[in-house]
């Protein structure tokens, strides 16, 4: 026909890059899509995510705090009840947001909105989609954390500029939960199974030394709580909030770095199960 059109002998040369089957180095397209979708839909979703921990802080911190008074902070000095629970609420909020985005949100977009179905018929690989979605979740988490930390400052709960490090630290906490959450979602088939996620999250929120010190528990229960990720998140942010660091700080941080590494590895291994059926 016309000169210049390629002849029919189409042969592609396969890349030997590792993960070439799963990853096309284009997660930024998924991120750009997410930002555009957030911009064109209303921002109400964003606002509700911001208010949840703030409402907890107001009701428990001010209301319950009036009854409780002061208690010992991480460095042994007494702090107000509101200042005690605020970093914990930030950690819970990081967990909730990351888990929601990496489980329910992914599950819905996969099985109902068919969004990923469209994406995966392009040059994108499942790893591009996973990285893009996790990045978006963390970006949202960082925005919430900034908002919440601002509220803490306004309420006079910040005593040191070091407390601003709670923002990046809560992103690390969120990353740990998001990378694991996506791996877990790959095992889910039905909405009933997805409910199990909530079944694990709610007790973790209530009992991870969020509202009272770990010392109220018998030793065996303490060990159990200390094995769970949220307790490490709560303790990490609580120490940062009053700039009281020690070897334990590194343990908490290390816990999340390992969680991120294992979660991402597991997610990558499960990508075919998650996205390609």
């Amino acid at each position, binding site marked *: 026909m016309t*000169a210049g059109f390629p002849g*029919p*002998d189409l042969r*592609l*040369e*396969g890349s030997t890059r590792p993960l*070439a089957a799963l990853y096309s180095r284009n997660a930024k397209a998924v991120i750009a899509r997410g930002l555009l979708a957030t911009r064109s839909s209303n921002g109400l979703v964003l606002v509700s995510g911001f208010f949840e921990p703030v409402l907890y802080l107001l009701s428990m911190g001010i209301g319950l705090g009036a009854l409780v008074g002061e208690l010992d902070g991480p460095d042994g000095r007494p702090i107000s009840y509101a200042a005690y629970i605020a970093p914990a609420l930030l950690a819970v909020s990081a967990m909730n947001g990351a888990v929601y985005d990496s489980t329910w949100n992914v599950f819905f977009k996969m099985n109902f909105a068919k969004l990923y179905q469209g*994406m*995966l018929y392009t040059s994108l690989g499942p790893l591009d989609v996973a990285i893009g979605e996790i990045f978006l979740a963390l970006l949202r988490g960082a925005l919430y954390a900034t908002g919440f930390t601002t509220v803490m400052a306004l309420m006079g709960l910040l005593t040191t500029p070091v407390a601003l490090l709670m923002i990046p630290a809560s992103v690390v906490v969120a990353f740990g939960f998001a990378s694991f959450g996506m791996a877990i979602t790959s095992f889910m088939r039905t909405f009933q199974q997805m409910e199990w996620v909530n079944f694990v999250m709610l007790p973790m929120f209530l009992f991870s030394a969020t509202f009272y010190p770990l010392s109220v528990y018998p030793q065996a229960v303490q060990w159990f709580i200390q094995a769970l990720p949220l307790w490490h998140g709560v303790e990490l942010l609580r120490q940062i909030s009053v700039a009281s660091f020690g070897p334990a700080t590194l343990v908490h941080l290390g816990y999340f770095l390992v969680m991120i590494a294992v979660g991402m590895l597991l997610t990558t291994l499960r990508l075919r199960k998650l996205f390609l059926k």
Partner: protein
Amino acid sequence: MWSLPRNAWQAAADGLRALPRSEPDLTYAGQVHPHSPGPPVISAQRLSKHYGEFRAVDGISFDVPAGEAFGLLGPNGAGKSTTMRMIGGVSQRTSGHLTIMGLDPEEHGPEVRAHLGVVPQQDNLDEELRVRDNLIVYGRYFGLPLSYLGPKADELLEFAQLTDKASAKVDALSGGMKRRLTIARSLINEPRILLLDEPTTGLDPQARHILWDRLFRLKEAGVTLILTTHYMDEAEQLCDRLVVVDKGQIMAEGSPAQLIRDHSTREVLELRFGSERNTTVAAELQGIGDRLEPLPDRVLIYARDGEAALEEVSARGLKPLTSLVRRSSLEDVFLRLTGRSLVD
């Protein structure tokens, strides 16, 4: 509707090739006429996909040369869509071999799909984005630059007659418009191979004919078309060659004309005696034509000469309520091969 400026596709194709593309790129040998079948761009050998005990695709083999319009014809649940998904590398095969342009789509999914356009059976447009953004964002998934995507999106909106809907929300579009947008979207990356899974289901007859015309032009431009359908007329209109698939297996393969020649007679006499009598009267029709097929609503007599067969029916003193002599179609082939009609 579907107005594409003449040579716009070609111009766009040239434009795309001028773009810096990430490796790997196509290497093509020699100048071969697009109409002449070349070496296969798609090659499937004993391809199978099982879900537990269920064999959705059960050992099918076929080759598709570049530039061909190849059809997968079969009823719902025959394994057509599953085959399409394996070609796109978004479904993992249970066994067998599959190469697309020389690559295994499971090992090189992103690279293979860079040259595929996909129209899925159900529209999966991005409901959170507006119409034009759907095209732009989809193009970015291929890593294409915005400088290319802007004009290309406008051209495709024109092609799909959605220019005045460019900034509309997707859920405000009618079913036909969504279908057109999905098809336009599949062309954003100038695909070498276009996978169309029941492309005209849900379109009105006029829209179908215009779409067929568009697809025919793409084929003329050298694009390989892979099409699933359960519409006989669509297969006859578009496909150079097709396979009849049932229960995950290939029942027959060939051009529409060849299949009719091999598996049916030249003409078919359709008789209706009323739904109660069709089966009982079939016994009295034995011996007329080459073959008899009693269906619940009518009796089919396969014969070289339909009129002669009808005369013989009258000569036996049988008075059908209606009678019709027509040419054999792919529907008859399917009926012959599987014992049931295509669209149940």
